[in-house]
């Protein structure tokens, strides 16, 4: 019997087993090839960045006017990143959630058009988003600004938030949806006080993944917030961000001080991004676990 079965697949037993094992070996090699850069990048950035990051000055001081000078920190960039990403979330989350609910509850041509646009947006290079905001907001205002940067980041976040919210809301268990209707709840009450709370951890995951994507973006900020060597909280001014600071210092990496600053900021940025990312994933995993126990 065994030999009959084998004949379906391949001529001889030894060669088959060899090929199966070869496949496993190749796959493991591929995984290593993919993971080596991850370990190399993180390791290299960690080793070169940890010394900067461990000093308090790095977080509480602004960089020197001349990139080649030593000392100073990245306070302006850290604050700028947090402020712009925060505003971007405030813009993108309600809109993303609204469009997702609209697509599910109302549907029709308008929903399809909006969803098509969001799909297009999710595949759009972020630098193109930067150009959009430049051509409209920056040109109209006549100057670069943190607000324009926030807007660009919001557009980058929007598809992540919308797609994940829509997926989660579609998964609302049917009995619960029907129960809400049977209780006589208006649709808007059912959505806001039943569907959204049930999918909340999933929606939060989408938001966190969106934030972790927006926080690492450099390209759209080049045309919008531009960067600023000085500390500012004013969204009407050009504003520095961690990725921009890393980029500018990397371009001047012939100077040891610029290199050190870039690595310190890169480590800080990676830790922030991984933090958001892992918390988001943890929430998803917890939900799956809870779901399987139910």
């Amino acid at each position, binding site marked *: 019997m065994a030999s009959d079965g084998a004949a379906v697949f391949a001529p001889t037993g030894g060669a088959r087993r060899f090929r199966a094992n070869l496949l496993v070996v190749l796959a493991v090699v591929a995984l290593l090839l*993919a993971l080596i850069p991850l370990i190399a990048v993180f390791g*290299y950035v960690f080793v070169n960045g940890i010394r900067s990051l461990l000093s308090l000055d790095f977080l509480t001081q602004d960089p020197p006017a001349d990139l080649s000078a030593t000392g100073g920190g990245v306070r302006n960039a850290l604050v700028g990143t947090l402020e712009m990403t925060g505003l971007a979330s405030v813009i993108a989350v309600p809109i993303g959630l609204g469009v997702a609910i609209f697509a599910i*509850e109302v549907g029709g041509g308008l929903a399809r058009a909006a969803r098509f646009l969001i799909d297009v947006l999710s595949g759009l290079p972020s630098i193109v988003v930067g*150009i959009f905001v430049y051509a409209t907001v920056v040109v109209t205002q006549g100057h670069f600004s943190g607000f324009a940067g926030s807007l660009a980041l919001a557009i980058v976040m929007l598809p992540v938030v919308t797609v994940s919210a829509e997926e989660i809301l579609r998964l609302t268990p049917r009995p619960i949806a029907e129960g809400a209707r049977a209780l006589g709840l208006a649709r808007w009450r059912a959505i806001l006080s039943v569907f959204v709370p049930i999918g909340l951890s999933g929606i939060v995951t989408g938001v966190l993944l969106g934030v972790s994507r927006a926080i690492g973006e450099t390209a759209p900020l080049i045309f919008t917030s531009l960067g600023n060597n000085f500390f500012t909280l004013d969204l009407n001014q050009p504003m520095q961000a961690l990725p921009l600071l890393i980029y500018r210092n990397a371009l001047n990496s012939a100077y040891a001080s610029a290199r050190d600053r870039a690595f310190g900021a890169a480590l800080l940025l990676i830790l922030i991004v991984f933090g958001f990312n892992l918390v988001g994933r943890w929430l998803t995993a917890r939900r799956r676990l809870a779901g399987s126990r139910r």
Partner: protein
Amino acid sequence: MTESARAPEQRGALDLAGLRRRRWTGDLAFRAILSALTVAITVVLGLMMIESFISASPVYQKFGIIGFVTGSEWAPSFTIYGAWPFIYGTLVTSFLGLLIAVPISVLIALLLTDLAPARLRGPLGIAVDLLAAVPSVVYGLWGLLVLVPAMRPLEQGIAGTLGRVVPFFGPPTPGSSYFAAGVILAIMIVPIVSAVTREVFASTPRIQREAVLALGGTRWDVARTVTLPIGRAGLLAAVVLGLGRAIGETIAVTLVIGNSDNIGKSIFSPGFTLASVIANEFNEATETLHPEALIALGTVLLVVSVIVNAVAIGIRNRFTGGSRSGF
């Protein structure tokens, strides 16, 4: 809820008409708000796209769309703008990135669906996904300071042997090059390609895979007879999505491609991609029409990536029957 709103229920007689009316007004308002929001975002995004094309229009008027796209010279100081050197750079680097990334991604996807012990699949998957979370600028920084110098011997080796016969692989090898950009792109698109491929492979019928094993087939047989043939269309979607990502990747490429406005004859020459030339030249664009020309490059990038992504979404929808997540 206010006292008056609860009053009818407390009296025991439901004010059904009133309830229905309130519900109806609430739903109507809710719907109106959502519609307004959706219309607004659609209009705003549409306007932004149109405004970008309008900003670029002087360049298109001067050189013509075909003339701009196929023009092989980019000389801002002479007000000559042709996009071809950057389209060429985008094609070469994206193709090289896919060439390296696709086989690796397919093998990883197979490993994480069929081959690896179930206990390891979760953590390994997360590790691969984290690759996608590393910001582009960090890859660029690492690529510039570590990857480019480390690859120099390999480049010299290829240029010294194969490069003697084929000019495309010829010297000189300054380090920053199309080749370096392709390698960094490969690292960056492996997570997206392998994630989509994994989803596709995981959705192939389990029962068929188990049937092959039950008939005495090996895991190679499972991959060859079930996973790969059934997952082929989805695999194509993953590749196209990876292409879209590679085309638009900006900062990491800018830092390792060497920044040259001319078409490099060899894969080891410095050059530019569409995205990287925009990022690199935008803040110093003071010549006549230079900013407009860079925005025009952006519109080329916009059109190309919309086409690429529409193709990917089309393939995926056909494969998953319209469901976005593959469920």
